[in-house]
């Protein structure tokens, strides 16, 4: 195993892990986006809340999520350590440095952009992930879907209502027909409420700019670090990096708080 330690302690090996974790986080963003698109569904949050339950209970996804937490931590800590090490390689700074003449500012600002994103992730996880998993603020909502018409209605449960599972499903009926009943922890409502706060919305939108700029360089850079640089495919990587990761995804994520703020 000597070679593993040797490799991962070298400057190239460390960058290699940065690239791998970075790309893994990039792939997560796609999943995260697809799931969160359900926030836009006009069903009072049924789909989103059900999805949230799925994401926190499925064992495979749970396992992946540990990998994700690890990746975030590793990417962040290693990134900070690399910034420190790289700073040491130039103890005396230039009086004049015209970086814009030879490189894009995003590539020179990965550390600061990453730090902004890290702060964002902490706030974001505190607000939603932590509250959802461990907090007591998020209440339950019951959804009833008319099996004949497909219409869905919802009703918040009382504040002191609680249940063992995050989701309880059942059937019920009244004069209008049969209903499928779902009582679930209402993350959707938490989202909707939080995003009525202007400062949080502003923070989210700003942070999505940081994500956009971080990935503008980061996505392509990861491929270069892994040695995947080929004139035939560089165009595609660049295209994906710019359109998916620095435009569509951040714009989509930014649209969510804005959607609820203006809703």
């Amino acid at each position, binding site marked *: 195993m000597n070679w593993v330690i040797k490799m991962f302690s070298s400057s190239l090996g460390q960058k290699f892990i940065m690239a791998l974790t970075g790309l893994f986080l990039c792939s997560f963003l796609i999943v995260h986006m697809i799931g969160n698109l359900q926030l836009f569904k006009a069903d009072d949050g049924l789909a989103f809340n059900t999805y949230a339950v799925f994401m926190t209970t499925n064992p495979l996804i749970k396992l992946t999520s540990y990998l994700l937490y690890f990746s975030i931590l590793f990417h962040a800590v290693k990134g900070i350590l690399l910034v420190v090490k*790289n700073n040491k390689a*130039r103890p005396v700074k230039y009086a*004049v440095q015209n970086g814009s*003449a*030879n*490189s*894009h500012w995003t590539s020179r600002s990965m550390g600061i952009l990453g730090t902004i994103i890290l702060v964002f992730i902490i706030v974001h996880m505190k607000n939603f992930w932590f509250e959802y998993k461990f907090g007591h603020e998020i209440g339950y909502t019951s959804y009833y879907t008319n099996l004949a018409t497909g219409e869905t209605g919802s009703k918040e449960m009382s504040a002191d209502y609680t249940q063992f599972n995050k989701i309880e499903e059942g059937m019920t009926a009244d004069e209008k027909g049969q209903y499928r009943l779902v009582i679930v922890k209402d993350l959707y409502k938490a989202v909707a409420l939080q995003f009525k706060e202007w400062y949080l919305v502003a923070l989210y939108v700003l942070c999505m700019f940081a994500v956009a700029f971080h990935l503008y360089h980061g996505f392509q*850079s990861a491929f270069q670090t892994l040695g*995947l640089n080929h004139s035939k495919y560089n165009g595609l990587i660049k295209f994906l990096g710019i359109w998916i990761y620095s435009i569509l995804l951040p714009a989509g994520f930014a649209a969510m708080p804005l959607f609820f703020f203006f809703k």
Partner: protein
Amino acid sequence: MEKNLNLNLKVWRQKNADDKGKFEEYKVNDISTDMSFLEMFDVLNSQLITEDKDPIAFDHDCREGICGSCSMHINGRPHGPKHAVTTCQLHMRSFNDGDTIVVEPWRAAPFPVIKDLVVNRSAFDRIISAGGFISINTGNAQDANAIPIPKDDADEAFAAAACIGCGACVAACKNASAMLFVSAKVSQFALLPQGQPERHQRVSEMVAQMDLEGFGACTNTGACSAECPKGISLTHIARMNRDYIAASFAANEK
């Protein structure tokens, strides 16, 4: 057409490695736009000598852009404002009358200042000593045409081998990383059949030496390639990354 310029210079002065160093300001007048940047420094130095001041030490030798000696950081860029030229090939027609020009030495922990604008780049030699060669003793070679090499590979190897070892890549990189320099040599030999037997060992040992010297890590800003007087491409860094990964996973050591 030829013109004459009056310029203000802010030059880093440092007596020796232990001195703290500081900027000094100088004026030079009637500088022909046909002069090279170093010839402008010759004028300044002869001015300083006449005024009984210490002339500015700077590295230079061939003055035709190939030896890699010259190493000035001019107005925030290694080798100054022009693309793909060394300081000695930078001519004064790239400047305007009345300009203030700030000149600093390369800044990097592995390139300590010896005096004024002269830095010690022997770290590069040690990296080459660690593996930047093909181990073939004199007299062992077979006929030069015995192994055909595809022209594209030969051309690409040449493009990598064009590196002059000036250190502008390190000077330009915000991390003072030597990846472009090291990868140019790794890539040159990786592209040639003669380089294959030692391919994995070479990249491992050169990277280890590079790290030992205290260069920063690569963050793919591309500044190195953009400032390289010989236009060495980032593809060589990618090739080295690839080879390094392959070497780490495939090498026989435990």
